[in-house]
């Protein structure tokens, strides 16, 4: 099926170009930043400085530096943190799994609950279910995750503890089972709201289509029509926002990890931004950017699998 292959290849190509652009941007920005990367609080001895300069080619003309930089990046060498002098790559490798754990929980929760709420709201349109779920969704879209996080900490963490004497939901840290719920929920709520709103609109659209009339004329029950015909078609527009949603969850970790004192990559990123730890900033940015590009690619591929019309046109509707 050449057309379908065409679609996938195009997506991969864009991903590669975007990542390359990202590398260029980060390189460019790094050289915009005041001072040179190795001036910090501590003075670096001359020989070591010279060695580092040679390694990163800082005494070479810009294009050469660029190639060295790209080469380093592709080898996984993101440089060394100005703050604690550890390789950035190592810092990322330690912190990312924590954020990934948090993020995946949040995404799964958001997707499943969001889709369900959207279907319920559409099917029971105009009733209390509809208004209720959509009101909830509106709150989710309007209340920023950090505010929600703080509120959750206060009411479900502190107050509940004061009321019952048991720490049902941990307020800080990451590890024990009860510590994962609040941050994941705070992270997920906004995305869940977006998904449910979009799913509702999409379902309403689909339920007006002629093939639903056909399904009814065939004698299928309401439940069968909804779950075997409508949902499959309604899900597709939701899949297209999964890319931006992953990005939203990712940036959400910046704040949530801060509030809940979770040792994830988001917390590290924020810290290094506040401390002007340029190499870490750049390294983490590159990592995040590439990750998101990759996630978008995965979403595009999933969409291609779901929509049989891609086979024909080689392009999304």
């Amino acid at each position, binding site marked *: 099926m050449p057309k379908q292959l065409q679609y996938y290849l195009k997506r991969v190509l864009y991903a590669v170009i975007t990542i390359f652009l990202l590398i260029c941007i980060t390189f460019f920005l790094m050289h915009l930043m005041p001072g040179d990367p190795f001036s910090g609080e501590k003075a670096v001895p001359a020989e070591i400085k010279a060695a580092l300069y040679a390694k990163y080619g800082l005494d070479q003309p810009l294009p050469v530096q660029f190639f060295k930089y790209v080469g380093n990046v592709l080898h996984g060498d993101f440089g060394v943190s100005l703050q604690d002098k550890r390789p950035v790559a190592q810092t990322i490798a330690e912190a990312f799994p924590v954020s990934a754990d948090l993020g995946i929980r949040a995404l799964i929760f958001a997707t499943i609950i969001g889709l369900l709420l959207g279907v319920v709201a559409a099917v029971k349109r105009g009733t209390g279910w509809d208004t209720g779920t959509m009101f909830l969704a509106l709150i989710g879209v309007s209340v920023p995750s950090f505010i929600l996080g703080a509120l959750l900490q206060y009411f479900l963490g502190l107050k509940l503890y004061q009321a019952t004497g048991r720490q049902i939901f941990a307020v800080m840290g990451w590890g024990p089972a009860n510590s994962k719920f609040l941050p994941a929920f705070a992270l997920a709520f906004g995305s869940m709201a977006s998904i449910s709103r979009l799913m509702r609109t999409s379902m309403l659209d689909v339920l007006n*289509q*002629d*093939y639903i*009339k*056909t*399904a*009814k*004329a*065939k*004698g*299928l*029950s*309401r439940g*069968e029509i909804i779950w*075997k*015909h409508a949902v*499959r*078609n309604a899900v*597709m527009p939701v899949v297209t926002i999964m890319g931006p949603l992953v990005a939203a969850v990712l940036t959400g970790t910046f704040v949530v990890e801060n509030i809940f004192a979770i040792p994830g990559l988001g917390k590290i990123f924020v810290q290094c931004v506040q401390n002007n730890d340029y190499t870490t900033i750049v390294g983490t940015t590159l990592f995040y950017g590439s990750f998101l590009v990759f996630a978008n690619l995965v979403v595009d591929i999933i969409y291609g699998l*779901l*929509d*049989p*019309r891609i*086979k*024909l046109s080689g392009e999304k509707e």
Partner: protein
Amino acid sequence: MERILDIKDLEVSFDTYAGEVHAVRGVSLHVDAGEALAIVGESGCGKSVTAQTVMKLNPMPPARIKNGKIDLCGRDIVAAGEKEMQGIRGQLVSMIFQDPMTCLNPTKKVGKQLTETLKKHKHLSGRQCREEAVRLLKMVQIPNAEQRAGEYPHEFSGGMRQRAMIAMALSCHPKLLIADEPTTALDVTIQAQIMELMQKIRDETGTSIILITHDLGVVANLADRVAVMYAGKIVEQGSARDIFYRAAHPYTAALLRSLPTVETSRSEELVSIPGTPPDLYAPPAGCAFASRCKYCMKLCRHRQPPEFTVAQGHVASCWRLHPDFPRQKEGK
């Protein structure tokens, strides 16, 4: 002859924000086994609503059956609940719609869609369903049936899609097939093919057919009987020959006149009926066709004509058929 469908005095209204739309204002018709009945009329005359009410496809708010009886093979449709209707739809009576492009689920394979009802009601296995899907596609003369069953709707042409719809409608051998403007969205040559197919099916399986259309030309070959609808009522009903050769209602006559034939010369003007159908929010007190009828009389404007028998099996609702109608004063 077994009577498959019997509708008596059906009245259906829609409750909208702007008031009540009297879509169907007292329709009585019937279909016998193996018969093909054509319901003909302009857009908005209520023919689709009538058909969809037989299967209770209209969402019941805002639609409302105000009055009337619908008897389908002994089942009381008006009183039937939703669960009962689910057993009737697809099994006793099936429907195919106007636009085959949008009537098939784009994300489901055609073969699966064809046998969905079969799977549900007859509990066939996966393999049996596949075989049945191929057999159905062959029955409606789609070439390469085995391959086609595994394809998606967008890979079919318009005519093929309509054939697939017909196959889908017949999968459970219903007694009655309702075709709502099946050829309106298709090319003329494909139209002829589809009509031929429907005839073949009627002859081979004995399924009764209700053909709904605004195009009298399509009706000629297939229909045994014809009902002409206008503004929510049936104005004339009879055999195909009655309607084509002995039309008794002015509206029917006007419709026939407006059809260009092979013999129409190029210099002749096309005849149309001046005016538009009445607004069904406020249906007129008299005959709905009165203001467009060249035979209109004083009586027509304020009293609705009842059904008059013109001949055996041929009725029409026109005051000119009243025994007291003064034949000499045929005004122009």
